[in-house]
């Protein structure tokens, strides 16, 4: 086991903008961060779920509820 490649989050807090339905990111001082300053979804290592596991969808066979890092390993 080894840590995932470091992915700096670059923000302190995120909330949903009611009008745009997009995330609004804030730094530690409570200032809104510009779009793009909080990182992009390139790597696939958010500690969230993809697909089958505990996602509100039901399992496609595993019936599990395991949290998934969403990362892929590959050659």
């Amino acid at each position, binding site marked *: 086991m080894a840590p995932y490649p470091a992915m700096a989050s670059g923000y302190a807090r995120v909330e949903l903008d009611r009008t745009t339905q997009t995330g609004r990111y804030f730094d530690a001082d409570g200032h809104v961060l510009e779009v793009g300053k909080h990182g992009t979804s390139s790597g*696939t290592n958010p500690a969230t779920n993809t697909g089958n596991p505990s996602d509100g969808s039901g399992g496609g066979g595993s019936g599990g509820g395991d949290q998934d*890092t969403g990362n892929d390993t590959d*050659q």
Partner: protein
Amino acid sequence: MSDLGPVLVVTNLDDPTADVVISELHDRGVPVVRFDSGDFPHALSVTATITSNGVGGTLSTPSRAADLTQVRSLYYRRPSGFTFPHLDEQDARFAVAQARYGLGGVLASLPGCLYVNHPHRIGDAEFKPSGLAAAAAAGFHVPPTVITSDPDAARSFIKQHAPVIYKPLSAPLYRIDGVSCTVEVAEVAADDIDEAVSGTAHLFQQRIEKTADVRVTIIGDRVFPVRIDSDLLDWRTDYSRLRYSVVSPPPGIVDALHAYLARFGLVFGAFDFAIDREGQWWFLECNPSGQWYWLEPETGSPMLEAMADLLERKPPQRRGRGGGGMRARRRR
């Protein structure tokens, strides 16, 4: 389905890709209702009725509501998962199961909704053995692979197919001192195999002597093949060392890509291939929920437009074409 109904976006709050897709839909005047399974039930509610006439009802968030009969499409991204932290372990397990099969079951059964992708189909496609089997059936070259808990079988496979790598079959959350960890993909020799292999299932696969990688993203009927040059075994370990170029797939690949997705009932897929010295493409995997948007600024390919067109359910003849992105032939 409805031309005027909303697009549902299911994801956690920190999802920049969802943000750009939602912004594009917003600019097009397409209503969006965004929510996360982790919001249920305190900030997400659903009341669905099922009668002989089918499914009806409403899904509500603090800022939006959706008529379940009018949902245009559902973009399934990266929800955080149900949690009931105020309950003890057993009650929480019960509550999670009810939420999953209740809310999750309703979301999986919306009449006329286009799923990008359907969460159950994602679940099916996330099993590596199923993916490799489907890839072989679709006509891809698939590296010889063994799944086993038998150390002797692992050793003999390695001797026969060296060089061989180990890959985890799935990457569940695994924290060491609070840090998310994974198994690094690495070459394995027969001498490395010990009795620990008998502890659970393991996947070993012949290592392709590759000259480059390819990521092919399919968004609806549009195909975005991108060659990735690096000196890495797994290019996802360091994005700063990658060079991207748009390529044309060898004959037969595009048909096979669509055959693969059709087999699982998917409309989006992020395929990874290794190119060997002869230029042959070897199927490594297809992630039904893979990241893709970072490739648009790297290649100039109109991927965001393709995703918004798909979710909007824009008829092909009314679509804008920004150049780039192969249009697949429809297969019947």
